[in-house]
Every structure is written in structure tokens, then in C-alpha cells.
């Protein structure tokens, strides 16, 4: 089966973000940007912590199991690069981000920033030993997203 194109991926994400983006924009108008981001961030933290727990259950919660899908993504897509890797860290660069593209097209880039801010919580929820640090983010105006997951023994 062929891989879905980036544009197909963006369309799928747009569908899943449409209502949320509408709520987010309305919150910005009614409550101001800071409060809206605060609410979105708290809501997304809860979702991502749950998603990380599910992922850990599915993969066994090890660092190796977490890294493998990233390597596979890099093999399949030119937009994903493994910049650096060792036994206890992996740095990944992503040139095309469907979440950023979708949020932007829906007029809610700050919603994507709130999502990016939850990456460290996602990592720790996967396993308390795992840490995440973002070096570059499209949502901050960088050309690519680049971040490192580190496993602390």
C-alpha cells in the first residue's frame, strides 16, 4: 500500500482540528490570547499524557521501542531525518509538519504552539526516564522542527 502524501495527511489533520481551531479562535476573541493558550495547553497536556500512556502500553515503554518508528519514518520519508543517535538519545529533524500546516491553514497557529509545548509532558508520560528538548520548531518560525529525546538511566 502506498504511503499517503503530505497533502493527504494535512487534509486528515485539518478535519480533526476544525472544531478545536474554531473553539480556540473564539476563546482568543472572548478571553484573550494568553488565557486561550493556557486552556488549550492544559487540555492538550491531558490528551497527550493519555496518548503517551497508551503508546507505552503498546510498545512496552522502552527507549528502543520508542525510537524504532522514528527510524522507520526516516527511511520512508525524505522529510524526516535522524540527525544523531546513541543508546540513550535520538535527535530527529522534521521538514514537513502536518500539525503546523493544518493549524496554520485553519488560522490557529498558536494552537499548534500549545501542542508543541506539550512534547516534554508526552515524553515523561511515556516513561519518566525520557526527556524531550526542542531545538527548532516550525511553530516558532524555524524552517524545520528538530528535537532530542534523551533516556536518563
Amino acid at each position, binding site marked *: 500500500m502506498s504511503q499517503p502524501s503530505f497533502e493527504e495527511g494535512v487534509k486528515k489533520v485539518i478535519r480533526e482540528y476544525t472544531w478545536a481551531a474554531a473553539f480556540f479562535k473564539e476563546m482568543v476573541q472572548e478571553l484573550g490570547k494568553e488565557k486561550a493558550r493556557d486552556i488549550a495547553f*492544559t487540555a492538550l497536556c*491531558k490528551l497527550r499524557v493519555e496518548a503517551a500512556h497508551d503508546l507505552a502500553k503498546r510498545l512496552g515503554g522502552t527507549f528502543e521501542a520508542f525510537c524504532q518508528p522514528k527510524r522507520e519514518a526516516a527511511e520512508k520519508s525524505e522529510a524526516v531525518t535522524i540527525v544523531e543517535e546513541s543508546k540513550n538519545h535520538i535527535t530527529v529533524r522534521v521538514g514537513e509538519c502536518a500539525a503546523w500546516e493544518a493549524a496554520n491553514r485553519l488560522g490557529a497557529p498558536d494552537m499548534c504552539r500549545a501542542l508543541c509545548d506539550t512534547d516534554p509532558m508526552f515524553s515523561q508520560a511515556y516513561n519518566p526516564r525520557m526527556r524531550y528538548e526542542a531545538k527548532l520548531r516550525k511553530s516558532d518560525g524555524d524552517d524545520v522542527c528538530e528535537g532530542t529525546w534523551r533516556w536518563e538511566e
Partner: protein
Amino acid sequence: MGKSDFEESLEQRIRDYTWAAAFFKEMVDELGKEKAKEITFKALSKLRKEEGHCLAQELGGSFEAFRQSRHETAKKLNTVDIVEESEDAIVVKIKRCTAWEAANHLGVPDMCRMFCETDAVFAEAYNPKMKHEAKSRCSAGDDVCINVWRWEDY
């Protein structure tokens, strides 16, 4: 056994509503139910207005084309029936509503209630001659949703 059209459609709805439901629940926690509902209603009204305009552009904005689109939905989903029809009205019964079931599954029945409240906005945006009346609603505790779409000629 493969999934039914309804099951697939429900799963898609759940995916479409997951983030929105999380935002809604957080708004309720932070701002209280009334304010959360107010913001949600405004946001959904804008979306449904846009949806009504887009559908009008796609179908041409006539009642006949709208009626036809309801028939197509009923043909595709065995959970939707056309129960009455005339030149200027169509009554649609939804025996299982994906919006209601998805919102309930996600723990936000009030979000669906707000969505139902925007049906009139959608109708008006499709064509100011079109009016909507809900005879019964799953989100109001009824067993089925019965929507009446009426065309008013002035």
C-alpha cells in the same frame, strides 16, 4: 466482520471531536459551564454558517438540491430515514446520531447540544428561505432526532 458505514462514520466523528471535546471540558473547568457553552455556541455558529454557504455553492442553493442531498444520505446510511416530504418540506429521522454518540463517548453531551442549536444557523446560511425545526433530539433525551427542513417563499 467489517465495520458498518455507521461504525466507520462514528469513529471518524470521535476523531473529529477529540480535541474540541478536550477544549470544551477544559473551558467548563476553567470558566464554568455557561461561559463554555456560550463560547462553543459562537464558534459552532461560525463553522455552521460557513458550512451552509459552502453547501449552497456546491448544490446551487435550491431546496430541491438540498432535498436530494438528504435522500442520498438516507440511501447511504440505514440509520437515516425520510419520513415525510412535500414540495416545500422534508422531514428526516435520524435513528442513531453519530454527533450525539461521539460527544457522549467523549464525555461532552453539552457540546453536542450546542451543535444541535446551530441547525437553524446552517439552514439560514444555506438559503435565507430555508428554516429548520427540531421535532425531537437525541441530545434532548429523545430516542431519535427528527429534523424538519422547510422552504418559505415570500
